[in-house]
């Protein structure tokens, strides 16, 4: 094994660790939404600090690998994509913090049913699968994540319309509902970030850029 | 873990190194000393005769006080004549062997012939010259017999020197020449020969020196008489050279000052050879300076 392979593995392990923190934050956020607890909200903020530390460390690792090894082909794609995946994970953490900040303000809940909970768990699933696709070099899984974004967008749209109806019906709910709108917006953004990660995984594995397919007339070369 | 031995230079090997250095220096000094002794002995013997008239007078048959004017002329004339034959042939053969001949049996056979000729004792060549040129072709003892036989002596040397000098030309230079679109001949003339020039020139000097000093061959082909006419450029007359004259006066012994004349002749020969060597060095330096 080349020395470079060892360093690539170190980078990958670092991203895995960072992703693990992300998943922890999402888990805590879901729990805090279901049952608000200031302790949990604080934990999310603490973990965000850990995320920021990871981002700095891993960014530097990527730059060093580029400078010292002049990688080519799949190695190059891996590092270039890692440079894009790392901030995506950090942003997911930021969004979790945004949600955690509002858990108190959305209680008592204005929404009936488990749509909100489902939005959280489906988003969490997308993030988890995207990270698994990265770790396991699983192109099919990455592809599935990209497709899942549509259903999460649909769910977000449904909850949004429900909230609008609730606000129109009962003015006392407006404050809580408007905070909730911001919460579901954050979930939707997290889902987008998971999709971005999956697209980067496809670039690493297949060498094709899966973004903005509407710009390309036919399939990429 | 195996123990690593301490690497220290032994005292004896340093001593041997210094000793060898001294020995080699000694050998070099020995050479110089021998040369000085040798030249000194000859000069001492020939001193009485060495003056300008010695070089400008005709030789005496019976009396003392003869000169070596015609012999000087003949020596130089024969060198020039034989070189003008052996140089083109030798160069051509050398170029052929180095550049054109395919490797294989033909080349090996050619090389064997040339080496045999080169190793032939000069007395044998002398006999050959006498049988073929002097007797069979009826040229008798003459300048032309001498020049041709001398040429035979020198062709193998020039060939070998040319071949070796050309083979020493770095392949990259020839490649560069071909790469620019040169033909084989152009490459040989413009790149290979200029590079080999120094080596070939050295060979030429050796050859000229050898031709100048050769005695056995010329005794049997150019004879022991010098023309009474001076200067005589005819090819048909006998041409006693300095080296032959030296041998003749000594072995004949009739001249009263035979010893002095012999030594004087030897001194003149050494002088000429030294001048020739110096001249060539100057020419070589001038050639090198042109491409600096």
């Amino acid at each position, binding site marked *: 094994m080349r020395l470079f392979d060892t360093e690539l593995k170190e980078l990958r392990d670092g991203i895995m660790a960072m992703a693990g923190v992300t998943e922890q934050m999402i888990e805590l956020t879901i729990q805090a939404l279901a049952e608000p607890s200031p302790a949990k909200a604080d934990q999310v903020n603490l973990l965000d600090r850990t995320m920021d530390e990871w981002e700095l460390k891993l960014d530097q690792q990527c730059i060093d690998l580029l400078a010292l090894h002049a990688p080519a082909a799949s190695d190059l794609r891996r590092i270039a994509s890692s440079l894009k995946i790392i901030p995506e994970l950090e942003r997911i953490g930021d969004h979790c913090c945004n949600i955690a900040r509002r858990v108190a303000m959305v209680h008592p809940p204005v929404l009936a049913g488990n749509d909100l909970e489902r939005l959280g768990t489906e988003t969490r699933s997308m993030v988890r699968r995207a990270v698994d696709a990265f770790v396991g070099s699983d192109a099919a899984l990455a592809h599935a994540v990209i497709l899942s974004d549509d259903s999460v967008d649909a769910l977000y749209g449904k909850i949004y319309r429900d909230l609008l109806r609730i606000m129109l019906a009962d003015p006392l709910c407006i404050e809580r509902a408007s905070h909730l709108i911001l919460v579901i917006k954050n979930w939707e953004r997290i889902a987008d970030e998971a999709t971005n990660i999956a697209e980067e995984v496809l670039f690493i594995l297949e060498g094709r850029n899966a973004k903005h397919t509407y710009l390309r007339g036919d399939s990429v070369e | 873990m195996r123990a690593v031995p301490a690497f220290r230079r032994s005292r004896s090997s340093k001593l041997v190194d210094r000793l060898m250095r001294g020995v080699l220096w000694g050998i070099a000094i020995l050479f110089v000393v021998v040369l000085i002794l040798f030249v000194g002995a000859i000069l001492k013997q020939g001193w009485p005769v060495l003056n300008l008239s010695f070089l400008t007078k005709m030789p005496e048959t019976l009396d003392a006080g003869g000169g070596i004017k015609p012999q000087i002329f003949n020596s130089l004339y024969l060198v020039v004549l034989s070189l003008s034959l052996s140089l083109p042939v030798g160069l051509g053969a050398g170029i052929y062997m180095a550049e054109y001949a395919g490797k294989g049996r033909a080349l090996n056979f050619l090389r064997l012939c040339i080496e045999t000729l080169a190793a032939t004792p000069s007395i044998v060549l002398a006999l050959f010259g006498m049988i073929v040129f002097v007797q069979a072709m009826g040229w008798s003892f003459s300048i032309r017999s001498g020049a041709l036989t001398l040429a035979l002596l020198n062709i193998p040397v020039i060939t070998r020197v040319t071949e070796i000098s050309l083979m020493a030309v770095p392949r990259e230079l*020839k490649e560069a020449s071909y790469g620019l*679109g040169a033909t084989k001949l152009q490459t040989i003339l413009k790149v290979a020969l200029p590079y080999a020039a120094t080596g070939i020139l050295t060979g030429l000097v050796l050859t000229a020196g050898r031709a100048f000093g050769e005695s056995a061959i010329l005794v049997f082909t150019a004879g022991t008489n010098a023309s009474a006419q001076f200067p005589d450029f005819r090819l048909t007359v006998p041409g006693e050279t300095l080296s032959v004259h030296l041998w003749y006066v000594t072995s004949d012994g009739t001249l009263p000052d035979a010893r002095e004349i012999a030594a004087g002749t030897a001194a003149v020969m050494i002088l000429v050879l030294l001048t020739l060597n110096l001249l060539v060095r100057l020419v070589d330096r001038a050639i090198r300076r042109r491409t*600096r």
Partner: protein
Amino acid sequence: MLTPTLPETKPIKLSVRNMAFSYGDKKVLDDLSLDIHAERVTAIIGPSGCGKSTFLKCFNRIHEVSSAVNVSGDMLIDGVDIYRGGIDEVDLRRRVGMVFQKPNPFPKSIYENVAFGPRLFGVSDRTTLDGLVEDALRKAALWDEVKDRLKESATGMSGGQQQRLCIARALAVNPEVLLMDEPCSALDPIATAKIEELIFELKESLTIVIVTHNMQQAARVSDYTAFFWLGRLVEMDLTERIFTTPRVQMTEDYITGRFG
């Protein structure tokens, strides 16, 4: 356009179809087919002994000077077969110049080195030669450094300057193609950088084929890259494609240093 994109607009200058090459009975190249576009730099990479230098030298038939070779298949320049199209080798070598791995200037003056080529073809007028020498030295980015010492020996120059002199020497006969066989492998990084810049300028009017064992150099300098392995062409594509998304696994493995 700095780097080519498809579709390629430059015409094909050199074309190879099913070419095989052997020294005596030793087969060195087999079943090669590729196209080299005019006014582009094509790099040939591959491990030692894969035949890339041998292949390069087929374009100016310089093998034939020293050995008997057997070439089958087609090698065309501007559509004419190099081996069977009745092309004169001497004229071919004027059109297809070559720069070697180790700089090999003649032990003559700088002027004489550059004038060597034109003189071969009968140019003897002093003014014409002066002009040709100056042009060639300018194109090789050497004129300013040597214009005051043209009569000095070429062997007194640094390695990088000598190599540029060899390039000037090749340029003096106005070639259409320049073959470069690992031209920088004996040079230091600064000299290498100067020559790479030179290649970039020269490709505006010349087709360049460069063999290199330095992959970063191939990546920096070439428009197209061909990867050779054991006498065969494994993959050839736009350089940026080869170095980001090669199609053949072997190419990927070689480029990332996993073998070779």
